[in-house]
């Protein structure tokens, strides 16, 4: 597969993911909260905080998508293995850690409040797992790309 084609495909996946996240944050969460308050009117004070929380969770993900867009943009130029990309992966790991902290905060809040429906707990466990995996993967990826960038630089300066 040509690097240009790979970059286009990857960027397409990112664009679709960003749209999906915006859809969930701006439409999905409000719709879900509307349903929840219909079933349990006592929860209506939580609508705005939950929508705000949904947006807060989405922001680091959208920033990470933006950084990955830049990383994929370097692929056709044969510049994937660069210190700049290594830094971007490290930043993405920090963004994932931030989101993980938000999810853990919500989990702790729900447990303390005694709100423990099985479905919500399962979703939170899945979200924590995904967050941990994302942090580890992007940290390791950043370290690998940094090593590769150093090797590439040494190779380019070996005549």
């Amino acid at each position, binding site marked *: 597969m040509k690097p240009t084609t790979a970059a286009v495909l990857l960027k397409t996946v990112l664009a679709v993911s960003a749209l999906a996240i915006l859809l969930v944050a701006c439409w999905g969460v409000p719709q879900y909260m509307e349903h929840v308050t219909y079933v349990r009117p006592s929860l209506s004070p939580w609508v705005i905080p939950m929508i705000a929380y949904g947006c807060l969770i989405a922001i680091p993900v959208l920033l990470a998508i933006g950084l990955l867009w830049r990383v994929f943009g370097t692929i056709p130029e044969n510049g994937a293995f660069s210190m700049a990309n290594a830094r971007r992966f490290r930043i993405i790991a920090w963004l994932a850690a931030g989101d993980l902290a938000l999810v853990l905060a919500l989990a702790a809040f729900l447990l303390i409040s005694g709100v423990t429906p099985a479905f919500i707990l399962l979703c939170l466990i899945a979200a924590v797992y995904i967050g941990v995996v994302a942090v580890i993967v992007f940290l390791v990826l950043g370290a690998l790309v940094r090593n590769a960038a150093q090797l590439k*630089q*040494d190779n380019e*300066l*070996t*005549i």
Partner: protein
Amino acid sequence: MPINVTLDIMLARRKMSLNELSEKVGVTPSNLSILKTGKAKGVRFSTLEKLCAALACQPANLLEYLPEEEKP
């Protein structure tokens, strides 16, 4: 760097330009310039062999070791 490349001295002795050497050796002028200015991190043996053949010299004519305190 303690290893100094004296390519410019050999080019002057052989009255050869960098472009001429580049054509003989098959290395781009920019890469030869990197070598000449001491910015290279290494030289492949194959490149060293081609340089020695083109300049009719020994590797010792192209490379010299300068300990840190003796650097000019």
